[in-house]
């Protein structure tokens, strides 16, 4: 058994068997992370380069840690301190790095489709760590693992994705993955932040009412308001957004059941989530981060044997 693809460009290209295989392998890596020596020699002979053309804390640290726990050799690269600032093209940069015998590339880029472009032109296995507003597949996978752990299954589970659906690659990866695994998905947010034809295109429910959505769901995945991606004003102020779509303790207490709160980070405290919700027992935000390392180890492990 192995994955049906050579690269991880997006959840869109994976089958449900691939997803199950990654989650199942990630569970075994979670056990590895509990051992006194949290390291296995699986990727001893593999060189991985982390190309981060866009800022990142969690994802980059998580990937680097996953690579180290698998004993891979790693090179980390950030665009600001490299020749990219001198005007080198993406393909030239990557080809120069690859001529130094690199097996896998983990890449984040602000342009949607950048990893797909690279996959067509270079022989190394490519893992997308977030491209523009397209996909963030490892985030989708770690969210799925966290839901599976907390609820027990994905099939039939009701998941609400709340906030800026329009600019969110996390939302897109989550929707693809959850639909493939048979979960029910509702997207909720202000009409200006929800793509017009999303209900038809991705078979999700659309709601503009936060309270109704929370009443319906088992898990609420709350997205970050991405101010840096908004070229135009899509809601009048952060305070108004918080009043209409921010999740407060009071709102959660008024529901008839206890729901699970997730957030891909970094949190805008007081905007989409209030502090006493983010730090409450209902929130599994830190478990998501913990699962991130295991999921990324699984992806790297499963794609590594195709590198020859």
């Amino acid at each position, binding site marked *: 058994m192995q994955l049906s693809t050579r690269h991880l460009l997006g959840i869109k290209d994976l089958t449900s068997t691939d997803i199950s*295989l990654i989650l199942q392998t990630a569970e*075994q*890596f979670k056990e590895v992370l509990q*051992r006194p020596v949290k390291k296995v020699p*699986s990727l001893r002979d593999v060189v991985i380069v982390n190309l981060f053309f866009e800022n990142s804390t969690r994802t980059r640290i998580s990937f680097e840690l996953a690579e180290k726990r698998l004993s891979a050799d790693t090179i980390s690269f950030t665009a600001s301190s490299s020749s990219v600032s001198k005007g080198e093209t993406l393909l030239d940069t990557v080809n120069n790095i690859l001529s130094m015998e690199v097996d896998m590339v983990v890449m984040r880029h602000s342009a949607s489709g950048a990893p797909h472009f690279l996959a067509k032109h270079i022989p190394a296995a490519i893992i997308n760590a977030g491209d523009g507003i397209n996909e963030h597949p490892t985030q989708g996978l770690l969210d799925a693992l966290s839901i599976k752990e907390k609820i027990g299954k994905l099939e039939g589970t009701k998941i609400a994705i709340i906030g800026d659906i329009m600019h969110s690659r996390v939302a897109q990866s989550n929707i693809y993955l959850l639909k493939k695994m048979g979960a029910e998905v509702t997207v909720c947010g202000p009409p200006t932040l929800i793509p017009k034809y999303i209900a038809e295109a991705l078979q999700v429910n659309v709601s503009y009412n936060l309270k109704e959505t929370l009443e319906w769901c088992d898990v609420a995945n709350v997205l970050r308001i991405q101010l840096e991606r908004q070229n135009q004003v899509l809601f009048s102020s952060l305070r108004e957004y918080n009043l209409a779509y921010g999740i407060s303790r009071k709102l959660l207490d008024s529901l008839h059941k206890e729901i699970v709160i997730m957030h891909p980070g970094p949190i805008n405290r007081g905007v989409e989530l209030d502090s006493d919700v983010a730090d409450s027992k209902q929130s599994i935000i830190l478990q998501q981060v913990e699962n991130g390392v295991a999921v990324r180890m699984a992806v790297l492990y499963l794609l*590594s*044997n195709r590198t020859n």
Partner: protein
Amino acid sequence: MINQREFFFKALFEGLCYFYRNNQYLKSILSEQQLAITIKRLAHQILENNTDLVNTVLIGLQPRGIYISDRIVSAIKKEFPGVAVHYGKLDITFYRDDIRKSLHIANQTDIPFSIETKKVILIDDVLYTGRTIRAALDALLDFGRPEKVELCVLIDRRFSRQLPIQPDYVGKSIDSIISQKVRVLWKDKDGKDEVVILDGE
């Protein structure tokens, strides 16, 4: 008389068809009864050397070794009811030396106790090249530093070793050639208890 002969030829024909379909020849090494006796003996030998089970840890190797380790542990518990046996399961997938050749899917590892300064007995079904045990030793040392590690196998394919590894407890030693395969069948998984040799093409 004619009926008997017809029956004989029919049975022979069906048998040939069966072997043709499977493209290999089956030879039984241990029957269900012999297997039960052998497992009981292995359990007794382990008890003989480790009368005090407090400092001994039994670890079955995933995926096929856990069937024999399950049986040995239940035989020990039957002999000494009420004694707490430290029993874990170890998966060695991430430590394999052929990881780049083909992808293996990991199974569950479950060692819910410390192995520090304990005596560890690794249990597997077939010892062949010794490469699995090499990987298991590497994996085991990531859990701590045991005082001693021993190896218990149901079938020892001697003369096939590629690494300097020898078992301490052996169910049965057999001489086999590389093209042959040894399969240990278990009731829980394969429908019957038996050890067979398969001849490859």
